[in-house]
């Protein structure tokens, strides 16, 4: 998941669609995020590259909408509804996820196990 500055970022991503749950006045998604370009990347327990300032999922409420959609702890969120999440501040990410007018968020997330899965499937000879 490390990136080379100046080169486009490539990653294996999974599409996850989460329906927001209405709780009183708020629409909640059921997970917590950490990271952002204004945060300290060295303290991120989930990132491989400690200079990675992307948005990571730090906690999932069990039984919440994110859990039901298949989001896992430690995922890096690359896109939310088409908006880029690799170079945003923490507050911008929060605001993009919690837009009141949107009922559903479509995330593109990446995790280490996805890459390994793809590598494994590519190493099997075609039959």
């Amino acid at each position, binding site marked *: 998941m490390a990136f080379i500055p100046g080169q486009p970022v490539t990653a294996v991503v999974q599409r996850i669609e989460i329906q927001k749950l209405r709780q009183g006045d708020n629409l*909640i*998604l059921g*997970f*917590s*995020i*950490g*990271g952002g370009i204004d*945060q*300290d990347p060295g*303290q*991120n327990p989930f990132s491989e590259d400690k200079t990675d300032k992307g948005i990571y999922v*730090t*906690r999932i*409420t069990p039984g919440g909408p994110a859990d039901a959609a298949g989001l896992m702890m430690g995922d890096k969120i690359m896109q939310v509804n088409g908006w880029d999440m690799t170079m945003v501040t*923490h507050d911008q990410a*929060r605001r993009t*996820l*919690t837009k009141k007018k949107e009922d559903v968020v479509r995330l593109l997330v990446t995790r280490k196990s996805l890459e390994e899965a793809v590598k494994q499937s590519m190493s099997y000879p075609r039959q």
Partner: protein
Amino acid sequence: MDTESTYSGYSYYSGRSRGSHRHGERSRDRHKTRSKDSRSEKSVTINTPPAEPLLGDSAVRGEQVQDDNWGETTTAVTGTSEHSLSQEDIVRITKDLEDSVGLDCRRYFTLTLAVILGLLVFLTPLAFLVLPHILWPERLQSCGTACEGLFISVAFKLLILLLAVWALFFRPPRAGLPRVFVFRALLAVLVLLFVVSYWLFYGVRILDSQDENYQGIVQYAVSLVDALLFIHYLAIVLLELRQLQPCFSVCVMRSTDGETRHYNLGQLSIQRAALAILEHYYCDFSVHNPALLSASKSRAAKHLAGLKVYNVDGPGNNAAAGLAHSQSRAMIAAAARRRDSSHNELYYEEAEHERRVRKRRARLVVAVEEAFTHIKRMQEEEQKKAPGDVMDPREAAQAIFPSMARALQKYLRTTKQQHCHSMESIQQHLAFCITNNMTPKAFLESYLTPGPTLQYSRDHWLARQWTLISEASVTSGLKDGTVFLLKCVDFSLVVTSKKIPYIQMSEEYIDPKSHKFVLRLQSETSV
């Protein structure tokens, strides 16, 4: 025109020269440019003569031998003569002349008026009390105890009034201002009217009718003295207290080198504000040093000297204004197109000068520190030394001065301060520093940086005569945007005033217990 014009530094008229060396150089320069004109045909240059004070030239001009064929024969230029004067001498003579004549008669006139008014004011209550006894003593009621008590009160109030007037008004005048001081004049008129009206009342109701009630007369005198004390209170408020609260911020800029200072003044008239500013000028601004301006003047002269302007249309053809306008525009355009490398010269010259100053300064500091180690204060136990070895401060200064004299002189020459300090003043300062146990650094401080004008000898305060140039009347008050000039012989001070804005302050209370902090770890937001 092959003959060269030569110039000698001295003519056969001059013996020793007392004046400055500069005269010879200046006249030599002028002669050099003239001879250049006569010889070459191509470069007809328009020379503005280098900016020189006019007063200095008059001493030299009278002695030059002007010939009709000056380009073709050898000429001798007198550089200096026995009776040459330096620039400062001439200015000082004109100053002295102007000082002795002039405003003295006005000062004495106002002084006599003030004294007459004062006497009138003081003698009036006494006259009120004494006149009934003189004019109709037999019909007068005798003075009871209350009345005699009032005598004491009159006496003490008069004494207080006397002391107060002495404190406020009988101070040596600090300056002669161009116009009359408006508030003082108003107060004098008020007091005069007041006293006159009391006299009128007294004359009509008491003297004419020969009133017997002496107690009433005494009370009348007491009321006069009370009212005079209140007028004195009014005088204090108008003359002293009103301008204490700062209301305007004035910006004072010297025209020769742009040194700027800002001061806060209260509500004053323009002439009083000018006086306050001048008093600040003498202790805040560094001394005016004309030698520092010569470099930029020579650069300006070089700029003008390089351009040639031809009048092709002949005189009287176009309107004079249009012609001059087009000429100046042509000159500016030519100057802009010319590839000028004078900025390069300036940069390297300044860098070189900086280096030289620092080197000389280092040598000077070392020399002075070494010189100071040769002396020490004599302790009491050492009184057994022979009296020949013991020196007083002046002798001690003279003893150690030669070892630092050369380094100091070179440094002063490099920073162009040599005319501000004479040998005598340097030795005096050295003796002063030795007496007061100062370190070498303290001694040197007054030579390393130019100080305020007060620091130098009295003949540097040449401009005790200042001219106030103002578009508004000088007795009108300061307003926002007032601009006036204070001119003396060498330079002028440009003063601009701005009103201090109205400040709206509000408060915000912070509870001391509200200062709480948390550690910032990776922040996590739940969505």
